[in-house]
């Protein structure tokens, strides 16, 4: 069941999207998210959907794999929808007992759902097509101007890359611990909320201990190789823009302009 979480996992294959400079993908994802909140009519979302489908098609990542990550946010999605559905004031549509569903509520709920789904799909597409190392390299470069304001950009990037790198490792570890406890008759799936929360203790204790041990080992290994922060550190593979990256930037700008014009101004 833990294999279903795809957020933060890299999918190894060959494609144009995989080859793009991580900075392009970061900016693109950011723009895409902005576009989702700028658009407030159906045409804007159709354009966003088309753009997303195009990206997925270009990325060679099987759609099944991308949407598998959706299962994990399903709960969040339902809650958001319920809140929006019942708590938005406006023109009454249906009413029963203490609840009223308004026209605005339906609109708001479906818009929120679309936004959330697109947002997760878009950002998981980025992490699926970019290795964690590349991703943080890109982030480091993009945030470099912040160094002027004494923001420890390199350190933040390093922390992020370590965190991302450890997601699959810890996930695998969780899987193993879960199995080891299930072999001793542990049950993680049934019972009331409280029993279920309690049943997590045998899972979390070994997981935390192993995470701390790994962190310790990693710190030692970094120190042994004379790591001392970003000052004067060079890159083995510096990021350089190529022609596809420029084309990609163009596509994104055109896309954002289209969404703003169609989703906000024209209609």
């Amino acid at each position, binding site marked *: 069941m833990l*294999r279903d979480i795809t957020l933060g996992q890299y*999918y*190894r*294959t060959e494609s144009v999207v995989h080859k793009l400079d991580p900075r392009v993908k970061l900016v693109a994802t950011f723009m895409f998210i902005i576009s989702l909140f700028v658009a407030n009519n159906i045409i804007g979302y159709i354009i966003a959907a088309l753009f997303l489908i195009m990206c997925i098609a270009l990325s060679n990542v*099987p759609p*099944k*794999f991308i949407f598998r990550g959706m299962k994990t946010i399903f709960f969040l999605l339902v809650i958001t929808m319920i809140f929006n559905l019942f708590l938005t004031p406006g023109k009454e549509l249906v009413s029963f007992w203490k609840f009223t569903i308004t026209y605005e509520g339906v609109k708001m709920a479906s818009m929120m759902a679309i936004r959330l789904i697109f947002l997760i799909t878009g950002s998981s597409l980025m992490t699926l097509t970019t290795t964690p190392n590349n991703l943080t390299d890109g982030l480091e470069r993009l945030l470099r101007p912040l160094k002027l304001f004494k923001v420890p950009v390199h350190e933040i990037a390093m922390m992020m890359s370590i965190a991302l790198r450890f997601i699959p490792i810890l996930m695998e*570890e969780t899987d*193993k*611990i879960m*199995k*080891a*406890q*299930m*072999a*001793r*008759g*542990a*049950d993680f799936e049934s019972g009331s909320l409280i029993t279920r929360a309690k049943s997590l*203790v*045998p899972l979390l*204790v*070994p997981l935390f*201990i*192993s995470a701390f041990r790994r962190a310790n080992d990693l710190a030692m290994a970094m120190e042994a190789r004379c790591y001392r922060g970003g000052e004067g550190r060079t890159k083995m593979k510096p990021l350089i823009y190529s022609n596809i990256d420029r084309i990609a930037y163009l596509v994104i700008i055109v896309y954002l302009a289209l969404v703003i014009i169609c989703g906000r101004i024209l209609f």
Partner: protein
Amino acid sequence: MSIILDHVNYIYDEDTAMAHPALIDVCLNIPNGQFVGLIGHTGSGKSTLIQHMNGLEKPTSGSVFYDGKDIHDADYDRKALRAKVGLVFQYPEHQLFETDCFKDVCFGPKNLGLPQKEVELRAYEALKQVGFDDEYFYQSPFDLSGGQKRRVAIAGVLAMKPEVLILDEPTAGLDPKGREDILNLISKLHKEMGITIILVSHSMEDVANYVQRIIVMNKGRVAFDDEPKEVFRHYKELEQIGLAAPQVTYIMQELKQAGFPVDSDVTTLEDAKNEILKAFGKC
């Protein structure tokens, strides 16, 4: 109470580009009371195989039977199965979590829904069976040495009174003394309690002295499945799949080729010694 695997296939990460078969057409029959060694190179599918035996993994195709019943039938109680087929994982760190060793061993029987008295009795029994000292009973399991941690982990599974005990590389990361202790302990459990034992290892040396039958896995398939001496006859093929026969086998083979009248089928150090002494006419 035998375990039967019938044409079991298992594919990891099905439907993705990372899909790869971990088990290919595995057919096995493990009768009651046998001491089996399961050997294979890293990534040969041995860990996946044992997880099929207690229902932690479901085969992509094929079926697993325990005691004549298909364990993936809708109404089969897999939780009860896991008490009967005890599986001790490779790293004790993956299962120890309580504040003291005794409580940790109680975890298994408690999950079976037994009364508190029975739980504690079983835990005490299990810790005694693995030769764990009373004075460490109430110590944190995290302060123990590798060998002692492993004992607690084995006790944690033994406390559920399994009919089959599967141990995944129980000697990994132990020093020679610790290895021997653990292996002797397992052998003792087999003799005294008469339970089926499946010992997973990548070292022939480890298992040769103890087991009645060796199953060799290679790239998800069963490569050999026979008595130790029969398997070791194929020492050349074993080398090709990245394994090796025990050193005894090599010595005996070379002695035989050099013209000494020895039986090259012996598998244990003790037998080899006797064979060599016999060949030299010393006894």
